[in-house]
């Protein structure tokens, strides 16, 4: 993995995980892969942070998890968005977009 890949910005990892899970239930490795794919390999996920984020979201009730058999018959822990998680995703997305717009405005100031 290239070293210049930026780490996911602190605080946005939760949002990325929620977004990923909004598409379909997924296990940890899958989530990491998806985020890398979606970001066109720009964002690198710190695996430790990922599992802590999953724990955080599970504790807050935004996602829940269960052990399932994967397509190739392995046991993996799948995560899924709860209704609370969906609401959180909507509000966090809105907040993020507002933030990006605000930062962009600041940066475009000449």
């Amino acid at each position, binding site marked *: 993995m290239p070293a210049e890949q930026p780490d996911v910005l602190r605080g946005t990892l939760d949002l990325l995980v929620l977004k990923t899970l909004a598409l379909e239930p997924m296990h940890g490795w899958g989530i990491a892969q998806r985020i890398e794919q979606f970001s066109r390999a720009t964002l690198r996920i710190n695996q430790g942070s990922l599992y*802590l984020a999953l*724990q955080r979201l599970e504790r807050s009730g935004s996602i829940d998890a269960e052990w399932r058999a994967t397509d190739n018959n392995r046991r993996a822990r799948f995560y899924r968005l709860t209704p609370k998680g969906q609401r959180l995703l909507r509000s966090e997305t809105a907040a993020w977009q507002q933030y990006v717009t605000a930062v962009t405005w600041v940066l475009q100031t000449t």
Partner: protein
Amino acid sequence: MLSKLRYALASVLRSGRMNRALDDEIAHHIALQTEQNIANGMTPGEAHRQAVLAFGSVQSLREAHRDGRGTRWLSDLRADVRHSFRTLARTRALTAAAILTLALAIGADSSVYSAVNAVLVRPLPFRRPERLVLIGENNKDFLWHMADAAPANYFDWRARVAGFQDVMAYVHFGLTATLMIDGTPRLVPVARVTGNFFSVLGVVPERGEGFTDADTWDTGTPRIVLSDRLWTALGRDPTIIGRTIPVDGRATLVVGVAPRGFTFPQPNIDLWSPVGWSKDDAAQVFFRRAHWLRVIARLKSGVSAEQANAQLRAVAEQLKIEYPATNRIMEAELQPLHRFLAGDTRLPLLVLLGAVTLLLLIACANVASLSLIRAASRSREIAIRAALGAGRSRLVRQAFAESLVLSAVGGAAGLGLGWVGTRILTLLLPPDGSLLPVDTVALDWRVTLYVVGVSLACGMLFGIAPAVWASRRAPGDALATSSRGSSANVQVRRWGARLAVAEVAIALALSVAAGLLVRSYAKLQGVDPGFDPTNVLTASIELPGNRYGDGAPIRQFYDQLLERVRGFPGVTDAAAVTRLPLTEPGWSSAFSIAGASGGNFGASLLHRQVTPDYFRTLRVPLRAGRWITTADAGPPYVVVINDVFAREYFKGADPVGQRICFDQQPDSNSTWRTIVGVVGSEHQVTPGTAPEIEAIAPFAQEASHAMSVVARTRGDPMALAPLVRSAVRDLDPQLAITRIETLSDIRATSMARDRFLMTLVSMFGMLGVVLAVIGVYGVLAELARERMREMGIRLALGAQGRAVQWLIVRRGLLFGAAGVGLGLALALAGTRGLARLLFQVPPSDPLTFAVVASALLAATIVASWLPAWRSSHVDPVAILREE
């Protein structure tokens, strides 16, 4: 919120499984990454290595994940507790001392609390007992308060007070009945009750049924309910219900068996029978004039005791107007039943609880200083942990955990000792039930809960000092300095000194209380009861009225019995009396003195009957006139009065030759009795209560079924007991002796409550002093150890041993003086509560205060002497070489 809770719960309960789940998840992740790496063309080994590398530190993820469960404090607690056990085990002697101290104090506390629980806390064994009230009559002129009620008044209250659901009444003084059990006559205590007794209490008989309202009146067939205890003695025969058995020789129908353990109104009751009044009696004036009932009402739901009390007072006011002859000054009042039953025992029990709580505080202070010493000796360890990044709160928690572990172990041991304590308490209890009107003192769940609470509170209390101390430590400080002279040790010393002073102060207050009770008891023992109790045997007998009638047969029986007793070896005198001194006040009535104006003295005169030799047997002195003699058999009626009566009502005039009668308003039917003599006053109830006015009539002129035979002997009076028993058996094989005991024992029983209280508080006081002395010693020994080097140098430079000793002793003296000063203030404030329990000793008795204060001061000096001596005998060379 709920999901968070579920998550926290799951993580606590399944911590191991959660760790494994995370490991599985990581393994899965790495496996998939490895596959992808292989697909990207790596060799399997390289693929795995890269996957692991990319994942990063598994260990730190594991730790962060565990912290992320939000239950870190719990696992910390587990670690703390485990660590505490280990450190406590390392300092075995200190730990053992702390646990022993705690166990003793908590054990004493739990046994006293179990008594408090039995009397004051545990609800009465009735249905909704909080709705029950006891009604008593008040008479300002006679100084009656919550006194027995007259039956006619009872019926009027029952009919007129709207707030009462129902009202029952019973006769509470010791009635008995004779029953044949296994062929031998046995006297059993009986409660005479109105027909609704059981229904008002809400107690349903275990078998059969209770009484009905109709039973209040004489139905012709006597009925009884048996206690479970008596039913067992009769063989637990279920068919006994509905059968008749002879009671006092009369065929009596058994209608029910009370639930096991139900013995209201007294712990020894074995039979309940209805009062069975006759309608004729109810019309008589005595039905409203004579007062002999205890009355209990159940309040209607929604009616408060205050409301019912107001209604009751209003009814009493009506009765005053309707029946002026009997009720002119009679008032009525109600009290919650529980409070009434606890009665006099409330104060002594609360005093005991207070004493034992003080003891517990001393123990806590003691354990606190032990913990402090231990913490100080581990200051380096704590400093290293702080330096390695242990949070301040973490260190405080660690200190608390140790205290809690100590208090939990101490509390558990205390509960065990408490069980032993309740057994000891039961043995020490006055046998007459004057302290605990209950028969069961046990460690029930309430006591257990209390002990758990107290232990935790103790742990918190003595955990504070070491915890605060641990939190204030700057790590660099402890690491930089070795164990001597650092600021931290100044802190330890300061806390230790505070604790030692507090211990001395509390021990002083406790000992002052003990001292006052000891002085009071000594005064009580010094009281001349008005007779000589040594070497006198007493045997109380009650002849059944249905076989002995009213006159001649009774006199004949007692004459024959006394004749035999006088013939027994060693007996010098024998007589009989209706009521023994130092037991109970007994019967009393209003009275008139012939020729005295008014006649209504507003006080009641006690009366007794005696056989001629009574005064000689008990060595009661004759003050004026003559004794009662065998010649006083028929009219003219004579009486002997006690000197209190002579002093208070004849004011210097000679009472001998004057006449009295036991009526308030004498008429032509009144019996006038001529006073023939004045005798010394016997204390009727206890040595602590002043003798009341009393008139003593000849037994030959006024026979009584119930008498006590008294016999003065040359040797041990109890040796006579079997002879007396067999004499009674010879005269009447169906007769049971109620009680046989020596007069000295009766005297001891009359002071038993005072002795009980004195013994326990003194024990607690002594224990408190020992603990306080140990506490002072501990602090000074620590001080001496710390200043060992300094002492060594002083000695090396030529200081006198005495001067070095003084350095330590001065400290001890300081603790002692401060503690004693503080304790005196504490005791002055606290012992006022004792006033009602003290006899002829003021609660601020200067002698007691002075003696206890100087004793405690001396004790602290002794406690400081050993460490002082040791520090003056250190070897300077050895000390200096230690560097």
